[in-house]
């Protein structure tokens, strides 16, 4: 029997409380990979958020443009007032009141929409102008009732500012200062009130008059005058990629193996296609956005290979190739038909560089979300516009294939590709109107990636593309 005993808790606490053991070395690689994933995921979430925010903003702006035509647009295009004077008509105050009421009511749809802008004292909102213009037209009618010199049909008078209108009003009708003061103080209220007050004001004016007439007002609702603003366009493009042609590493090992030629990388031509939605924001300007599939291809001949660290994969023999767009990690695809020179098992785990006669194809696919603006220089049957824009490009595919004499022997991907890159583009769009709604377009466009496609800081992979974009656009309404 022993005297000194330890209780079980203590036994474990003392032995295991500060127990340490070195974890396997691959764990840190796994943790790093997961951290990268999280960071990429975060980036993707951010891009998604920004995309959604941009879409909401675009929708809001579109709505705003539709419901708030520009200042000049209303008096010039949307309001037409004709006063027909019936000099011999009944002079009853009731009749004139009805007429003026109609003016007020017709001015209202704009007034309500714009009442939120009425804080801007210096800039007269369009609706105020239209209401005031309507009133001006009517006052010429009042003048006619009081006087006789005006023509039968008076045209709408336009004023660039409220002040100008008030000055005119004052000088023409010698209205009291009280009236102009009243209009000035009322402008911060909604125009509805202005219109109503104008109505009562007019009644007073008419009550003092001795002659009468009728006024007819035609007013085009601006909401109905936005036809042809929206359009959609399907486009397809031939893409000529212009990328670095040579890989400096090639010549290094060329000398020691004279039977092989030096490694050479060329950019391949591809096709892109997508759908765009356009919104006309002015007479000449169209803003477009949509989704476009875009591909970048590179081919490297006589590729130099190096055995990769076998821990990078357990599936087959692995190797690396270095291209201008980054390192490509490849694994073996089957054994059949493989040339002995390119048997990847010869390279497994070695750090020896090996020149081969294999061909390496790298394909990198993006979904592009462009935001473009087209300024129409000529808007006729054949129209010409300048296009410029920026795009967010989201990486959706990254594949590399190694082949020898047309037989695929290895596959993998280009490492360190960024999940999101940005690009800019400029082009000249020539369109031909097939019908009023359908336009066929051809657009030579130059696209340049703004940031490097590779996250490896020592690699600057910013391809530029020459595109010939053909499209068919359809305008709504």
């Amino acid at each position, binding site marked *: *029997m022993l005297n000194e*005993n330890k209780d079980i808790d203590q*036994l*474990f606490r003392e032995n*295991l409380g*500060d127990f340490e053991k070195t*974890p396997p070395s691959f*764990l*840190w690689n796994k943790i790093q990979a*997961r951290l990268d994933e999280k960071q990429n995921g975060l980036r993707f979430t951010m891009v998604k958020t920004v995309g959604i925010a941009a879409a909401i903003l675009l929708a809001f702006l579109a709505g705003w443009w539709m419901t708030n035509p520009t200042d000049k647009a209303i008096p010039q295009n949307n309001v037409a007032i004709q006063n027909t004077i019936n000099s011999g008509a009944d002079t009853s105050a009731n009749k004139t009141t009805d007429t003026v009421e109609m003016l007020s009511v017709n001015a209202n749809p704009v007034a309500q929409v714009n009442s939120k802008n009425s804080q801007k004292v210096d800039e007269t909102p369009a609706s105020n102008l239209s209401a005031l213009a309507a009133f001006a037209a009517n006052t010429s009618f009042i003048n006619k009732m009081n006087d006789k010199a005006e023509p039968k049909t008076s045209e709408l008078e336009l004023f660039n500012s409220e002040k100008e209108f008030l000055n005119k009003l004052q000088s023409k009708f010698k209205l009291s200062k009280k009236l102009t003061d009243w209009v000035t103080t009322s402008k911060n209220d909604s125009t509805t009130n202005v219109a109503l007050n104008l109505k009562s004001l007019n009644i007073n004016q008419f009550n003092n008059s001795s002659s009468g007439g009728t006024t007819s007002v035609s007013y085009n609702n601006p909401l109905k005058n936005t036809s042809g603003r929206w359009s959609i366009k399907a486009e397809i493009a031939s893409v000529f990629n212009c990328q670095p042609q040579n890989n400096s590493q090639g010549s290094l090992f060329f000398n020691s193996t004279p039977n092989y030629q030096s490694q050479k990388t060329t950019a391949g031509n591809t096709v892109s296609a997508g759908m765009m939605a356009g919104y006309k924001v002015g007479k000449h300007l169209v803003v477009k956005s949509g989704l476009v599939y875009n591909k970048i291809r590179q081919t490297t001949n006589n590729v130099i290979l190096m055995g990769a660290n076998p821990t990078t994969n357990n599936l087959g023999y692995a190797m690396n190739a270095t291209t201008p767009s980054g390192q490509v990690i490849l694994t073996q695809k089957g054994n059949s038909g493989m040339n002995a020179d390119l048997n990847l098992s010869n390279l497994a785990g070695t750090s020896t560089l090996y020149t081969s006669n294999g061909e390496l194809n790298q394909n990198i696919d993006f979904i592009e979300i462009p935001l473009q603006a087209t300024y129409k220089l000529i808007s006729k049957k054949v129209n010409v516009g300048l296009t410029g824009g920026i795009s967010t490009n989201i990486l959706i595919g990254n594949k590399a294939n190694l082949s020898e004499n047309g037989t695929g022997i290895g596959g993998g991907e280009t490492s360190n590709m960024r999940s999101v890159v940005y690009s800019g583009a400029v082009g000249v769009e020539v369109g031909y109107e097939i019908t009023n709604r359908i336009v066929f377009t051809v657009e030579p466009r130059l696209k340049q990636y703004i940031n490097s496609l590779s996250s490896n800081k020592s690699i600057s992979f910013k391809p530029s593309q020459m595109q010939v974009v053909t499209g068919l656009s359809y305008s709504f309404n």
Partner: protein
Amino acid sequence: MINLEETIQKCASGDRKAQTTLYNHFASKMYGVCLRYSKDSAEAEDNLQDGFIRVFLKIDQFGFKGSFEGWMRRIMVNTALEKFRKNNHLFAVEDMVVYENVQVAEETISSISAGDLLKIIQELPPRYRMVFNLYAIEGYSHQEIAKLMNINEGTSKSNLSRARAILQKKVIDEFGLEKNTVTTTLC
């Protein structure tokens, strides 16, 4: 020796080099913690990975109040507990022989390695392993354990005593003891 504060701040800004430094500094200790809470090294590796990911994602929330090692250790323990709660299924605990008033010889004890004890603790049913670790090694009270594991205090206590009993039995079985001191009961 690393400048911990600076390393932590760099980690918070996503500096991979600092993250590597921090990992290298604490990985062994934290792996030790994870091993105690896991049934085998594979589970411990998973927990260590999850725990470190969490450490790096939350490191900007570390307020430099108290020990950073303690903070990390709590994250590792919580990671193990969460996984336990997620996979928490009722497990049958077979009746077992319990040795009461066991006294293990001092010489025997000194010959037991930490590795041996770890193996024994890893063989405990998961709930017992959690409770025993939390109580005996981490120093939590039954009240705290009940909260952490979403069980009641009584369960925590009975789990602890069963865990102790099993551990005792295994220590005795594997490392020997004086037969006279053993009484056998069924529970």
